[in-house]
């Protein structure tokens, strides 16, 4: 099976539909924004130049290609708005991922060590919110976090505070929103590795003199690395490009890149800038994935 082979006619018919679909609606659009990112922004519709026409001669295409510019990318570096957005997004995503991990680990561990007949129910309950609307779950937090929201009311009723805490429209609210929304993504891979772990490994460690804390640190934790990494990526990657959560829970200072992009595209009509920002965002997100893949390959082939 290792030799590359040609597909038979029947096989080609099967693969044609998905191939054409991703070609037309994924690869072509991605190439287009790559092209737009090196185009010039103009006040027109569509708001960029040059535009290639099917009737263009080779010479015309060449002439138009001469006008390609890296202005949009230069602007990304010089414009502090974009730089800040990237840094802010990465920081928020990293902090949220860490907090999600800290909450999810004991939760997943408790589920994995629960009596076996309870486990399907527990994991079902933990995964169920994933099937409900993301938008609604984020929205639910508004009622909790607002100045006149339930948390502030409760705290004031208990006499713990006298004036409402500003929680809504803050960076903290964005982090809470991300942690809450993405918790199932962290729980599921963690639970999967922890539940799969052979209990006799822990018994063997205890048998060889390891205290419960040592068993956790030397056996359980290192053996769950795969789940930690998978969960972290599943939270971190979408969190970086997140739009809804910062838009609904964040304040005006929460400049996450997804939101900046959206604004540039819809409000400023600066398509080349937004396209360049999108291309850079994709490149940034590829880095952790490639590192992960490399670590995995090294693990498998290691000596």
């Amino acid at each position, binding site marked *: 099976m290792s030799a590359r082979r040609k597909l038979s006619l029947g096989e080609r018919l099967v693969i044609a539909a998905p191939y054409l679909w991703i070609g037309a609606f994924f690869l072509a*659009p991605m190439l287009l924004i790559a092209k737009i990112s090196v185009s010039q922004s103009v006040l027109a519709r569509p708001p960029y130049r040059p535009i290639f026409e099917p009737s263009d001669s080779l010479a015309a295409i060449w002439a138009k290609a001469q006008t390609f510019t890296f202005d949009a990318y230069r602007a990304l570096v010089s414009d502090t708005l974009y730089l800040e957005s990237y840094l802010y997004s990465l920081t928020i995503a990293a902090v949220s991922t860490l907090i999600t991990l800290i909450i999810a680990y004991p939760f997943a561990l408790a589920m994995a060590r629960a009596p076996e007949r309870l486990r399907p129910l527990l994991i079902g309950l933990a995964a169920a919110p994933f099937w409900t609307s993301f938008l609604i779950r984020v929205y639910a937090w508004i009622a909790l976090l607002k100045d006149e929201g339930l948390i502030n009311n409760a705290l004031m009723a208990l006499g713990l505070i006298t004036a409402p805490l500003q929680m809504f429209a803050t960076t903290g609210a964005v982090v809470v929103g991300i942690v809450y929304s993405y918790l199932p993504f962290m729980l599921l891979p963690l639970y999967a590795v922890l539940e799969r772990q052979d209990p006799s490994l822990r018994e063997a460690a205890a048998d060889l003199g390891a205290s419960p804390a040592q068993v956790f640190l030397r056996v359980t934790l290192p053996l769950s690395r795969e789940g930690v990494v998978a969960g972290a990526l599943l939270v971190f990657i979408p969190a970086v*490009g997140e739009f809804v959560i910062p838009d609904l829970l964040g304040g005006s200072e929460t400049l996450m890149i997804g939101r900046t*992009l959206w604004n540039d595209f819809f409000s400023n009509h600066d398509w080349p800038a937004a396209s360049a920002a999108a291309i850079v965002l994709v490149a940034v997100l590829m880095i952790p994935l490639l590192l992960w893949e490399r670590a995995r390959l090294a693990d498998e082939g290691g000596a």
Partner: protein
Amino acid sequence: MSAVVSWARRATLLIGFVFLYAPIVILAVMSFNASRLVSVWGGFSTKWYAALLENEQLLHSAKISLAAALTSATISTLLGLLAAISLTRFGRFRTRFLFFGAVHAPLVLPEVVLGLALLTCFVAFGVGRGFITLVIGHVTLTMCFTTVAILAALRDSDPALEEAAMDLGATPFGAFVRVALPQIAPAIVTAYLLAFTLSLDDLVIASFATGPGATTLPMRIYSQVRLGVSPQINAISTLLLALVAVALGLAALVSSSRARRDGQVVTSLARAPDNAS
């Protein structure tokens, strides 16, 4: 296991589930609050639900969303099935690497980027935006999920079964339809449901891909929510949550009764704790 550890686990589970469910439950309770204010309980009322029925904009959007979810999930599941078959049954064909990457890439692509790319493409080719472009967007978004779900099941299915069918005279196509397909049927259903809920829930792609006259429910909710908490939104949210809860409950019931049937053998085996094997 010591009692302390056991109590710590129970407490962890309790806190975890309260964190996961409290916001949703509070939202549902607030939808029955007669008062418009979050902080005041004005008595039990279903008036916001009644108001929903008169909100024609919202009802129209709900229909659009439902239609888009049904259509896009169907196309997406079909394409996902074809893609998964290509990736598991065709060996190492020449453009497999490209195909594999392109099929999986939307999984990690921020929705904002995918939406932006689709919109620029529609504009560049002069495609008018509306229901059809919305469905295209959702199929593109969900196809990677359906592919992954079906791919996993196809990889787990035993190729010897199909070989046995072919040995008994079935054509490769016949063997797939009669042997492999029934085995992966649960994965196909899961894939469909996944695509359906993702489409129903999507705000970002829809905002880019749709046009006038085809505003989806999440878009309506979003524009309302930006203005703050609204009792009508609480009500429609609760309805959507209840729908999912009922669907999940039914799915759990079906799978647990099936598991109980299969499980009897397992429990009788497990009853002897001193199992030498």
